């Protein structure tokens, strides 16, 4: 009982710690959001500002932008802890590592994935996404972005010991993001055309459940390898 209590305490304290850390490094807080907005606004400029064309492109576009923004923010997840030695202390804790990883990912998602989900309708309007598509967009992002953060954590943990891990994370993680992208953008597409969303959302939920169960353990093992090297 006491142990369960201390595990909840560790989860909450790590969560709070990471939020405080993110708040004090404000650039990391807003960078993914600005990146998200800029990437999405490049397409009307670079391809075509034609409303019909953009509204067709919008579901996939918002999803790709969200995916890249999450990826961009992933690298910093364990970086500073690795550099200042906090990660060593974490690995030498008798408490389960996956718990701390899960807590860090939760804090990270709150500031990246959830923030992206909130901003997404703005991009939707900008790209002439029909209003019927908005609920689908928000719901699919809400279910999909935690999966992106969890999978990204594995990549971040594997590359944390490398001096330039940024590109390598993308190579490792992007292929694993593809299923989320497929079902996420399909959900938005379905919402636009008025088809039922349930199937897509169920699949996104299943992927989230799988990632929730396995990714923290994999990331914990990856951290051990990175620190050991």
């Amino acid at each position, binding site marked *: 009982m006491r142990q369960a209590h201390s595990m909840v305490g560790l989860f909450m304290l*790590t969560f709070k710690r990471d939020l*405080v850390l993110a708040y*004090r490094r404000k650039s990391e807080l807003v960078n993914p959001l600005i990146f998200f907005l800029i990437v999405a606004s490049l397409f009307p400029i670079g391809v075509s500002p034609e409303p019909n064309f953009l509204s067709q492109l919008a579901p996939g576009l918002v999803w790709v932008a969200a995916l890249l923004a999450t990826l961009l923010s992933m690298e910093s997840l364990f970086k500073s802890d690795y*550099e*200042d*030695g906090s990660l*060593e*202390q974490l690995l030498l804790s*008798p408490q389960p590592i996956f718990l701390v990883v899960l807590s860090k990912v939760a804090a990270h998602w709150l500031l990246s994935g959830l923030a992206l989900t909130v901003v997404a309708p703005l991009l939707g309007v900008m790209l002439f996404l029909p209003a019927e598509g908005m609920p689908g967009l928000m719901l699919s992002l809400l279910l999909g972005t935690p999966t992106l953060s969890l999978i990204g954590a594995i990549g971040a943990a594997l590359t944390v010991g490398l001096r330039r891990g940024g590109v390598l994370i993308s190579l490792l993680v992007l292929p694993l993001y593809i299923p989320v992208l497929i079902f996420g953008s399909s959900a938005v597409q379905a919402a636009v055309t008025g088809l039922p969303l349930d199937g897509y959302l169920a699949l996104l939920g299943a992927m989230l459940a799988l990632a929730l169960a396995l990714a923290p353990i994999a990331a914990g093992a990856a951290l051990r390898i990175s620190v*050991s090297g």
Partner: protein
Amino acid sequence: MAQPLLSADSLFCERDDRVLFDGLHLSVSSGEIWQVEGRNGSGKTTLLRILCGLNSHYEGNLQWRGEPIDEVQDQFLTELLFIGHQAGVSAMLSPEENLRWQCALHPSLDASLVSTSLANVGLSGFEDVPAYQLSAGQKRRIALAKLYMSSAKLWILDEPFTAIDKAGVAEKESLILKHVERGGSVIMTTHQDVSPHMPLHTLNVEQFTSSAREW
């Protein structure tokens, strides 16, 4: 004879095709202070990281209270305090925030002693200052404050006194003495002179490289 707390048997470690040590034996009993010696780059830090389980690139046996360390990992970790080369202090957090998180990670640290320990290391008044505004020595002191809070049996300290002033070193040395009098053990590396009344055992890492160099 009492059972040793931590024992290492025929440890072998190689890095970048260079043998750091081969056939290294170490047996640490309760109440002992071990100082690991050697030139820069001779593998002191590597040895300490192997002993506490951060580095797995080695061959040989490690035992905790007579059992293979992999099998009693949890018990070993609850009784271990490690202060590494990097202090494990996050620069964006205040000393108090840093220590509170460490307490949650390590049940052997007593969270109710955070403020008295910070006062003990001379950081009272700095509790809420982010660590990046503190000097190198003060940052180190945040990590060393854990020595006042720890009920762990084995302390593994890697260069604990870097950037610490003389009075601070003397205080920590008396703390280490108290810890071994209570039956704890310490394994540490330091380049500074340790006061002569410390009951010190020394282990020179370089002794164990010679046999390997021939091939």
